[in-house]
């Protein structure tokens, strides 16, 4: 058995269970015998540390913790609320500002304002030439076939003059 093989048996040595051939090697190898002493030293040290008492929680530790949790959750809720309201306020303000900007900028050049007067007159003239007055044409066409008791506009005017 080589010294490296003894090192690989550290778990067994740690548990105090040295196999036969390991014990034989230890009996004749001072370095490995020292290694075994180190194992026992460290193991004993751990046992002593186990007995080292942990500090006790200070008085009111749990109550202070709960208070801190409650304060931080209220703070979180406020932050969430302000973020929610604040974000919408900012968006609404931006929308109003954009609307005002458009309302001020657009009139001279934009398509949102009413069309200019010459444009309107031209549009009316075009409409008149394409579609003659439908009321006048109807009465001219149908006066011959109209019932006698229905006064015609032209007859009424003549009667009025007389």
């Amino acid at each position, binding site marked *: 058995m080589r010294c490296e093989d003894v*090192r690989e048996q*550290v*778990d067994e040595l*740690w548990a105090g269970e040295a196999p036969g051939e390991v014990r034989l090697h230890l009996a004749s190898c001072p370095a490995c015998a020292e*290694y075994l*002493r*180190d*194992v*026992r*030293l*460290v*193991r*004993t*040290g*751990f*046992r*002593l*540390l*186990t007995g*080292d008492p*942990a*500090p*006790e*929680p*200070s008085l009111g*530790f*749990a*109550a202070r*913790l*709960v208070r*801190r*949790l*409650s304060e*931080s*959750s209220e703070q979180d809720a406020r932050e969430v609320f302000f973020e929610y309201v604040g974000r919408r306020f900012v968006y609404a303000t931006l929308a109003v500002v954009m609307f005002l900007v458009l309302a001020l900028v657009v009139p001279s050049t934009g398509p949102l304002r009413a069309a200019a007067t010459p444009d309107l007159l031209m549009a009316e003239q075009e409409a008149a030439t394409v579609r003659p007055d439908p009321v006048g044409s109807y009465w001219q066409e149908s006066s011959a076939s109209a019932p006698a008791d229905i006064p015609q506009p032209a007859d009424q005017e003549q009667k009025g003059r007389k």
Partner: protein
Amino acid sequence: MASPEPDVAQELEWIKAAQQGDGGAFGFLVERYQRRIFSLVHHLVRQREDVEDLAQEIFIKTFRSLRSYNFQASFITWLSRVAVNHCYDYLRRLRASPVTYYSQMGEEGQRNLEAHAESPEEGGLDQAERTALQDLVGKLLDRAPANDRLILTLKELEGYSVEEISDLLNLKTSTVKVRLHRARKRILEDLQELRAGRR
């Protein structure tokens, strides 16, 4: 003899209430487990002045992540996982302090210490030797890599079995055994280097 069931049922009620944000219910859980967590943190970090602050951080972290607790493991196992992970992050930032008492002993004193420590009963050590040995192993732990320190503490100081450690760290038992084996080898090598460096 009182049945343990009402305790478990009560704990479940506290956990469910705390998951809905009930700080008072969580306070009952803190009172039940604070000493366990203080002990675990103390063994892991070995800085008495930091134990309470770390324990508070652990409980706050636990409360904030409580909704993710799915009742598959016991609550104390889940809480211990949070504690171990938090202490692991803390350990990675720590620097080890030098060994003092052991270094101050003469070579003969150290030999006597080693001889007495071989005795199966710790009654073979006097108070000075106990202090020196605690200091030595404590500092060896402080010098160890965080992973080694974690597994040695859980096994040797907290007394967890390999299976319990695998559950706590979410590792296979074979992985835990390998890590424990390597951690023991490394701490012994460090002791030899410490001794060789002093000579």
